[in-house]
């Protein structure tokens, strides 16, 4: 695509993104505290899903162990509170990203040697090791009780926690998360449209040929793995103050399944799919939990149905429909 053509095709996408952003900015004014916090969770999960999809959608690697990086982000924050008594959210964000990135860098060395199912189960196995540590080293991690995290100070202590915790989360913290969500989305957009991003897609499509045009496949996969882990770690760090507590549950495998779910629900062949999926999942879960304790069953059934009938996911299917509407008679 020529630069001019690229600008032309990106324009409607950017316009749509701007509209959605205006809507997100208005959320705390339009909706209740509870609903704002629900959206806030959705934004946090969307960051994790974006990171995850760099591997699945763009590099062709199916990880079943991203709970490790989300959990690492969360536990890094919780441990800094416990042992260092830090309170600055900026410090938490940086530490969470670095902590998760470091673990991803280590696990990645082993995982990127393999693809397909071997990659999938290695990631799952390593995340289970981390989970068993979070559970067994209870004198450090609090075991099943987890670790509490008070609301932090935002923007270099310019904004301190308000009297009412819910008020704080639904306004100040919501906007804090929104800003980081927009930044993370912009950075990921840049990464997947960079020459590096093209190299990842080449690896996804054809590993052998990628090697034969001079892309060092394993090294690029490793970098993608670390970036993916760091994004998911950022989500984990942002999630802790929202939840107020971190337990080994977020390192356990069903949480990895949840991240896979976001991306499959939204569609992993599009850039926006993971974001749509994370937000949609968040609503699905909020209401499914309200109706039944067997929400994992409900979600599992939805998941299976999507894999069977909507392989492009919500965003991919919508994109396909839009394209067909714009061009009613497709050229053959």
């Amino acid at each position, binding site marked *: 695509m020529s630069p001019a053509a690229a600008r032309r095709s990106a324009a409607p996408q950017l316009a749509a993104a701007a509209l959605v952003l205006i809507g997100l900015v208005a959320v705390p004014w339009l909706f209740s505290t509870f609903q704002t916090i629900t959206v806030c969770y959705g934004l946090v999960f969307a960051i994790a899903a974006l990171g995850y999809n760099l591997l699945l959608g763009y590099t062709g690697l199916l990880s079943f162990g991203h709970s490790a990086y989300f959990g690492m982000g969360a536990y890094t924050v919780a441990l800094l509170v416990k042992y260092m008594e830090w309170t600055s959210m900026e410090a938490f964000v940086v530490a969470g990203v670095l902590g998760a990135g470091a673990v991803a860098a280590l696990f990645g060395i082993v995982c990127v040697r393999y693809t397909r199912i071997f990659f999938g189960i290695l990631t799952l196995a390593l995340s289970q090791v981390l989970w068993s540590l979070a559970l067994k080293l209870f004198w450090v991690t609090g075991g099943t009780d987890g670790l509490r995290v008070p609301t932090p100070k935002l923007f270099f202590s310019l904004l301190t926690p308000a009297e009412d915790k819910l008020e704080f989360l639904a306004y100040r913290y919501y906007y804090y998360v929104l800003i980081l969500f927009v930044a993370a989305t912009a950075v990921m957009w840049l990464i997947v449209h960079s020459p590096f991003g093209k190299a990842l897609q080449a690896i996804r499509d054809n590993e052998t040929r990628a090697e034969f045009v001079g892309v060092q496949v394993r090294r690029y996969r490793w970098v993608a793995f670390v970036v993916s882990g760091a994004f998911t770690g950022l989500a984990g760090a942002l999630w802790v103050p929202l939840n107020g507590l971190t337990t080994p549950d977020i390192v356990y495998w069903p949480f990895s399944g949840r991240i896979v779910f976001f991306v499959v629900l939204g569609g992993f062949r599009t850039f926006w799919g993971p974001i749509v999926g994370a937000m949609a999942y968040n609503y699905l879960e909020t209401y499914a939990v309200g109706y039944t304790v*067997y929400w994992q*069953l409900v979600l*599992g059934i939805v998941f299976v149905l999507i894999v069977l009938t909507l392989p492009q996911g919500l965003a991919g299917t919508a994109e396909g429909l839009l394209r067909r509407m714009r061009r009613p008679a497709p050229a053959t």
Partner: protein
Amino acid sequence: MDTLLTQILNSLFYASTLFLIASGLSLVYGVMRIVNMAHGNLYAFGAYVAAWAVGLAASTLHWSLLFIVLLVGALAAAAVGALLEPTLLRPLYRRPEEYQLLMTFGLLLILEDVMRLVWGPHPLTASALSDALGSISFMGVTYPGYNLFVIAVGVVAAVGLGAFVYRTRFGVMLRATSQNMRMASALGIDVKRVYVQAFTLGCLMAGLGGAIVVPIQGAVLGMGIDALILAFVVVVIGGLGSLEGAAVGALIVGFVRTLGITYFAEVELAVLYLIAAVVLFVRPAGLFARA
């Protein structure tokens, strides 16, 4: 001397159950090139059904007949497999393999909650059977009779499965399909049927594994994923798709686990992964990989 023998028997006991789970996983992969993420949960399903059936029959049947009731668990898992392959996996064979993995992952989510829905959050037990066999003393050790029975079942299953795959007509079709699906199809083998049979057989083995351990370990939520991960370690060491590999891998993991429980309980899992990682570095396709 007696503790050494006990340790060896414990290792063989682990190895037996691991072989039952891992051989099914490996068989399905060998034939269909699918790793069934829900395999561990079919093992758990077999355990739950067996415990439930034994619980129902315990008051009316003589204890020796309960061994036959255990088989209900294995058959139930096989039935689930026979149902799942044609309905949920077959439509995906033409798609990129991510979708097959995702599908089995969805089944993993569903099965986990189905078991919670049907049998509740509390463990089920079938200890009537293990109690009935009591302990047996020989060569200076006293060892639970039921554990010896499990070892025997593992050995019989290994020999039986080997004979089945290498000596029967069906085994020939299985191996032909696994080596070249198109060629097998061109030679008149009904690949669709082989697939559903292989998948069912794989699930039967998983269910049998679950049914056979339930009198000792009980059926608990989360047992499926633990089993899946251990079975994966086994097949990584032995070579995915190889029956001999599953047997040798199960023995290695069985012995390491016994040592681990005695000497390094906290890092037992980590040591197993270390072994798997070393094998992967030295022989990326496992010890018994086919070229």
